């Protein structure tokens, strides 16, 4: 494949060029800067086109066209939106904590961008191949609650505070099953480094992807639900539930600050999908096409699924949301670790039968256990 | 290694019943709690009795395991079933089981039914452990658990203030003796370097007194005897036992008549070799026992509460046993211990049956119960005859054995005192019998009825023991029992003496006759004598002492003496036990309120002083956490600076 390492070649070429004229440390710096710049540019661009993609897909699902006026197929729509955001008035509430109100959206974007560091975009295309890659990802993405808190608290608005609290509760709750759903993958690949995880899924015509094992499938489902909840997308968008909280934690934000929140959210959606692809869907593994095309293709497919979910499902109720995380996903993910352990301990055929049976059985057991809530039949006096 | 051994099960089964009853009894078992306790007791019986008979046949069981390792010393726990413990074991399992069966009827309907049986099971477990234990530490642990059970069971009706006070008193009083016991055991360990009975016996048999002088061993023996004084209610620590009658009657029968109080005597028997090694201690034991026996019998003459009479009788009989042991009469003492357990338990259960049937405890309100409660009355009278020492019942043989020991070993004074005591015993027992069961019903409000079969059957069971158990120790079987014990611990034996037997029979029959003369004819003498001597008996302002001979010749001095002794008991000794300077009070005559004032004043002064000091120091406690932390930190800082020698 010629096109596979094309970006790597380009960078190496540039660095070679640098090395002829500058001392070594400049080359290193340049290497760092190039990766950083690529990520810094890629993040917002991806975000912009995700908004467009989302609007188009949602439109189609609702029998509409979606934006198609600005540019061909509406391709310039995000640019137009961005310009609109820039020129909008920046409103700060009178009693707001001004510094934190300003800091919150800025801080929001940082972890979202930092996560790109460990995403393996293609064969050899990981910005930094940290040996604690997945842990790094989990750690960094757990920071995102704090800027949300900052924004909601600094706004001095009860809707904001309520939204912030909901966001925090939700993110903490869903982080636990998400992390636990990752554990079997780490067990299988014996490493935390993202690139190595992808490599361990190679070969076998894609049948070595972790999603094609019982525990992988269950883990993927758990992870994916948690990912949707982590980036506050429907049906888990309680922190910004319009009908209850106006706009949740960013009620008091407008203009570019609002855009930053928005950007962080969409970049999170992208990175979470990308990590899902890395962990369960074989990352950049795939035949014929360049690895990065496979990677982006799979990632965008997952993003499309997220949008599809948004177009389909209703918003959760708060108690259902928490119950789903703590009473269903968390025990299921714990059981999943056990199942994965059994998978590695038993020979192949038996492992399939055993683990698949266990997955299905535990799924239904937890369904049964969670069905306890039966609301009492209510009679209203006025109705008589 | 612990070998799995059925004998370990004997105490563990009741303990299991205790655990189950205390945890689940109140909620799940309820009235079935009794069955659990009884079944475990019966199981313990089933295990223990064959063992006992094997020992009677000459076998001997011992087993132990390392419980605690301290440096190179090993403390081994285990059991030792030798003739002495086998005979006790035999007595405890049978009496305990029968009393529990009885209690399941007696306690029917009590709100804390299951807790009662939990306590009783715990007690059984401790008592059995004590009996078969092979060393002083295990013995002492069981001893203390029994003390706890006694406390819990005396205070079983803790809503009654008198019961609450009584359990408190019992616990504290026996505690005095227990501390002495512990000190004695530790001294013994210092002297001989072991707690194990067999090793102690072996060492002493070889004449090895350890590194320390013989007087040290003697002191330790006296201290061990303190345990007996406390637990077996010997003078001067006997005051708790009458009060302990506040507990449920089966408890009085089991703990405060048959088993626990006998444990003190058993302690002396267990450490008999120690006493034998230092014969100088023997007179102490004899004296204490003798005083106890006589004094308690004296007090019993004037009591009106049925259970208190029996309690004083118990004290008196325990005094008998201790006296016997003091005269090196191990066989006699132990023999009396076992026979006494049966007929005294029977007496208490009979008394319980009477109380159950009449709902009163005062014998002046009873009368003529013979026809209404035939089973109770017959068994009670048999037991009374046994206690009085009428041949051929068991009490006769064992008491005769003690008198024989006293007579033959040359303690003539002791012999006559004991004989007098035997006479008084017969008298007060039959006073009780005649007042309670004969004559006319005195209180029209009392409607007596016979107790249910679950209560009367154990009575008949105990009657068997009370009647037959004298035989093994009697001349009829050539003092089999004494010889049996002598296999284990050598002690002197004496040939039966016709003179002693005659004296004993005369004392018993005389007492009974005197009681019969006075109390079977009281009705028409009563009123006239009551009018004439009313001022003299103001202290006993009840209505039963109206007989002429009673008032002229016997009762008046007896009553006075009894009263004096009783007061001596109640005020002086109780006071000393309670730590209020009873000696000063006694020496300073009756004005005890002055003493109280001084002592209280001292206590109050100490309290005020403490309060005053406290009011200064309490400023430090601000209730403010960070302040504490700051102070702690500064202290730590000072420590660091000091430690690093920076200053």
């Amino acid at each position, binding site marked *: 494949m010629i096109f596979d390492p094309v970006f790597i070649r380009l960078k190496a070429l540039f660095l070679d060029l640098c090395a002829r004229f500058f001392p070594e440390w400049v080359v290193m710096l340049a290497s760092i800067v190039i990766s950083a710049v690529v990520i810094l540019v890629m993040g917002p661009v991806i975000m912009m086109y995700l908004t467009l993609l989302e609007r188009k897909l949602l439109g189609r699902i609702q029998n509409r066209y979606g934006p198609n006026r600005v540019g061909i197929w509406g391709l310039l729509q995000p640019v137009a939106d961005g310009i609109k955001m820039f020129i909008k008035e920046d409103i700060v509430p009178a009693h707001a904590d001004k510094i934190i109100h300003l800091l919150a959206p800025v801080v929001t974007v940082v972890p979202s961008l930092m996560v790109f560091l460990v995403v393996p975009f293609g064969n050899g295309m990981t910005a930094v191949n940290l040996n604690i890659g997945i842990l790094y990802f989990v750690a960094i993405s757990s920071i995102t609650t704090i800027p949300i808190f900052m924004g909601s608290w600094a706004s001095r608005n009860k809707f904001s505070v309520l939204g912030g609290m909901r966001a925090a509760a939700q993110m903490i709750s869903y982080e636990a099953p998400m992390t636990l759903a990752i554990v079997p993958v780490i067990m299988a690949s014996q490493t935390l480094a993202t690139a190595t995880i992808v490599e361990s899924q190679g070969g076998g015509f894609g049948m070595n992807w972790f999603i094609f094992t019982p525990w992988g499938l269950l883990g993927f489902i758990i992870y994916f639900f948690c990912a949707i909840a982590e980036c506050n997308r429907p049906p888990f968008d309680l922190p910004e539930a319009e009908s209850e909280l106006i706009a949740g934690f960013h009620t008091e934000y407008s203009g570019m600050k609002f855009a930053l929140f928005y950007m962080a959210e969409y970049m999170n959606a992208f990175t979470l999908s990308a990590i899902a692809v890395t962990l369960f869907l074989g990352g950049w593994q795939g035949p014929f096409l360049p690895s990065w095309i496979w990677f982006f293709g799979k990632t965008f497919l997952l993003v499309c699924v997220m949008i599809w979910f948004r177009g389909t499902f209703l918003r959760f109720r708060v108690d259902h949301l928490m119950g789903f995380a703590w009473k269903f996903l968390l025990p299921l993910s714990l059981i999943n670790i056990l199942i994965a352990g059994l998978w590695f301990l038993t020979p192949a055929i038996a492992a399939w039968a055993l683990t698949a049976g266990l997955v299905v059985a535990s799924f239904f057991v937890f369904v049964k256990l969670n069905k306890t809530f039966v609301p009492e039949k209510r009679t209203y006096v006025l109705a008589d | 290694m612990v070998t799995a051994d059925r004998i370990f099960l004997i105490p563990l089964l009741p303990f299991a019943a205790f655990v189950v009853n205390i945890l689940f009894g109140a909620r799940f078992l309820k009235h079935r709690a009794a069955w659990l306790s009884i079944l475990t007791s019966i199981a313990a019986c089933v295990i223990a009795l064959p063992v006992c008979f094997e020992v009677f046949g000459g076998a001997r069981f011992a087993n132990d395991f390392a419980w605690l390792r301290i440096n190179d010393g090993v403390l081994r726990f285990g059991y030792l079933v030798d003739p002495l413990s086998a005979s006790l074991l035999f007595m405890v399992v049978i009496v305990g089981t029968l009393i529990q069966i009885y209690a399941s009827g007696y306690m029917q309907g009590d709100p804390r039914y299951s807790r009662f049986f939990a306590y009783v099971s715990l007690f059984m477990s401790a008592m059995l452990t004590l009996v078969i234990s092979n060393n002083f530490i295990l013995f002492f642990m069981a001893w203390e658990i029994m003390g706890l059970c006694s406390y819990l069971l005396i205070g079983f009706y803790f809503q009654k203030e008198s019961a609450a006070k009584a359990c408190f008193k019992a616990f504290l009083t026996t505690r005095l003796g227990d501390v002495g016991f512990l000190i004695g055991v530790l001294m013994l360990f210092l002297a001989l370097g072991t707690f194990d009975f067999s090793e102690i016996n072996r060492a002493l048999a070889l004449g090895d007194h350890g590194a320390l002088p013989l007087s040290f061993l003697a002191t330790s023996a006296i201290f061990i005897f303190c345990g007996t004084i406390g637990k077996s209610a010997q003078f001067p620590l006997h005051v708790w036992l009458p009060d302990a009658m506040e507990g449920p009657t089966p408890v009085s029968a089991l703990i405060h008549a048959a088993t626990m109080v006998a444990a003190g005597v058993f302690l002396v028997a267990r450490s008999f070799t120690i006493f034998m090694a230092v014969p100088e201690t023997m007179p102490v034991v004899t004296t204490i026992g003798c005083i106890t026996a006589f004094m308690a019998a004296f007090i019993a003459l004037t009591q009106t509460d049925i259970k208190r009479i029996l309690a004083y009788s118990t004290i008196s009989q325990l005094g008998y046993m201790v006296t016997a042991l003091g005269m090196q009469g191990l066989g006699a003492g132990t023999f009396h211990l076992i026979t006494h357990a049966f007929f005294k338990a029977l007496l208490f259960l009979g008394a319980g049956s009477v109380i159950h049937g009449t709902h009163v405890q005062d014998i002046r309100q009873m009368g003529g119960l013979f026809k209404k409660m035939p089973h109770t009355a017959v068994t009670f009278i048999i037991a009374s005859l046994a206690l009085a020492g009428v041949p051929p019942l068991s009490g006769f043989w064992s008491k005769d054995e003690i008198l024989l020991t006293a007579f033959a070993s040359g303690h003539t004074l002791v012999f006559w005192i004991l004989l007098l005591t035997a006479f008084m015993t017969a008298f007060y027992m039959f006073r009780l019998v005649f007042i309670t069961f004969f004559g006319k019903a005195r209180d029209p409000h009392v409607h007596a009825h016979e107790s249910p079969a679950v209560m009367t059957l154990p009575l008949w069971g105990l009657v068997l023991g009370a009647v037959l158990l004298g035989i093994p120790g009697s001349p009829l079987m050539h003092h089999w029992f004494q010889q049996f014990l002598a296999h284990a611990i050598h002690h002197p034996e004496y040939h039966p003496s016709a003179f002693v037997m005659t004296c004993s029979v005369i004392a018993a029959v005389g007492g009974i006759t005197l009681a019969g003369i006075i109390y079977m004819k009281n009705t028409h003498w009563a009123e006239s004598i009551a009018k004439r001597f009313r001022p003299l008996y103001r202290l006993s302002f009840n209505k039963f002492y109206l007989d002429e001979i009673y008032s002229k010749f016997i009762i008046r001095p007896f009553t006075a003496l009894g009263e004096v002794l009783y007061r001596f008991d109640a005020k002086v000794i109780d006071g000393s036990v309670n730590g209020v300077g009873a000696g000063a009070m006694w020496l300073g005559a009756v004005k005890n309120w002055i003493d109280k004032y001084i002592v209280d004043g001292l206590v109050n002064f100490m309290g005020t002083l403490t309060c005053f000091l406290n009011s200064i120091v*309490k400023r430090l*406690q*601000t*209730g*403010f*956490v*960070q302040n504490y*932390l*700051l102070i702690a*930190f500064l202290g730590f800082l000072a420590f660091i600076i000091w430690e690093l020698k920076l200053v």
Partner: protein
Amino acid sequence: MTLIPVEHVLIFSLLLFAIGLYGTLTRRNIIGILISIELMLNAANINLVVFAKTTSLSPETGQVFAVFVIAIAAVTVAVGLAIVLALYRSRKTIFADEVHLLKW
């Protein structure tokens, strides 16, 4: 670690600890106290890591213990904040010097 002398890191953690201690001693708000305690724990953690790195111990040892400390810190915060909430609910205050009933 080759770059910075051990002494400097130790002084740094000492200062961090001192600041945390000052906060613990003087903050009125109980949550503030908890926060300051976290600072002290972190100072200790830094020392654990540094010592394990610079002595003959295996470098994992210090980190393992730092992980333990972090877990314990989480426990502290969870229980502490639960107490704070209960306190706030019952007494409407979370100032340490207003909760001083436990005296005399």
